[in-house]
């Protein structure tokens, strides 16, 4: 996989830069977009992950 990094640099890079991979995939990007973060004072974070529950809590439909 050719990348622009190696051609841009004047100094030589280690050989593993030649084997640079793309990070993630379209799929992982789509999945990441769906992650919602909420603020939580109790846990002292602005990034509590809103996780979809592991089961259906009610079954009314």
């Amino acid at each position, binding site marked *: 996989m050719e*990348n*622009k*990094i190696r051609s841009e640099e004047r*100094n*030589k*890079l*280690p*050989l*593993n*830069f030649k*084997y*640079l*991979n*793309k*990070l*993630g*995939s379209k*799929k*992982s990007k789509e999945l990441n977009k769906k992650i919602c*973060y909420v603020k*939580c004072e*109790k*846990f*002292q*974070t*602005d*990034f*509590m*992950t809103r996780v979809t529950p592991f089961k259906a809590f009610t079954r009314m439909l």
Partner: protein
Amino acid sequence: MILILSANNDFTTNEVIKWLHIFDKKYIRVHEFELFEIKVIDKKILLKSQRNSFYIDDINSVWFRRGGIKFNRLQFQNESVNKIMNETQFCLEDYVIKKLESKRHINKQSNNRTNKLLILEKAVAVGLDVPSYFLADNTDHINLGKTITKSISENIIVKSAFDDFDGILYTSIVDKQEDEVFFPTFFQEKIEKEFEIRCFYLNGKVWSCAIFSQNDEQTKIDNRIYNYGKPNRNVRYTLPPEIHHKICILMTELDYNCGSIDFIKSVDGKFYFLEVNPVGQFLGISDICNYTLEKEIADYL
């Protein structure tokens, strides 16, 4: 009081904190960009940032996860005064960090950088099997197809390397001769693996997980390349007692009391040590093997 040094967005920290609430343990969480001032009140050292304020004497245990305590260092007009004050401030800061590290802790801020080369040397010294490795700036003596190359830096992500993607330096097989000389690069013998083993180490205890990636061309060389269709098999595993023992010696030598360790079990039945990461992700194996490691950490603190 527990002191947690982490990042605001660290998911793992949130999971450990949930357990701290269950155990009714009090904690202070420090984010990555917080800057502290060192104050003295009634002869006691107080650290104060915009979010937090605490006496170091009140801290009983410290979890170094990400970032660390950073200080707001003052500048002085007179160059010579500035030099002295720089040293004075450094002394205080160093004292505070060392004082905190002398308490019950999980990893240390002052020892958070890994050096893959030194770690490999130590692993060999404690008697672990390590695939043979060397540095080179050319491919003259490389056994093509049987040698891998990987990064010796901790950070392996190259921002905006591609038009709409970042790049990542995974472990790769070297399959081509190079005409030109390159920057010194890490090479290692490729081991035919039966499976990989990811361990989590905490103060003498080891939890292991075998990762079967061999069936899958996509993840054969580097199991971090994720296959969404058919994820790798991750299953509970126990290392032989002598490997467990050597891990404990290695971690003590490296002065890490917590970290993730990677092994390969080769087709000929040997356990090859690959690397240690003191601040690695472990929730993946914790969930899949039902180890509840986040609870172990909360319990230890």
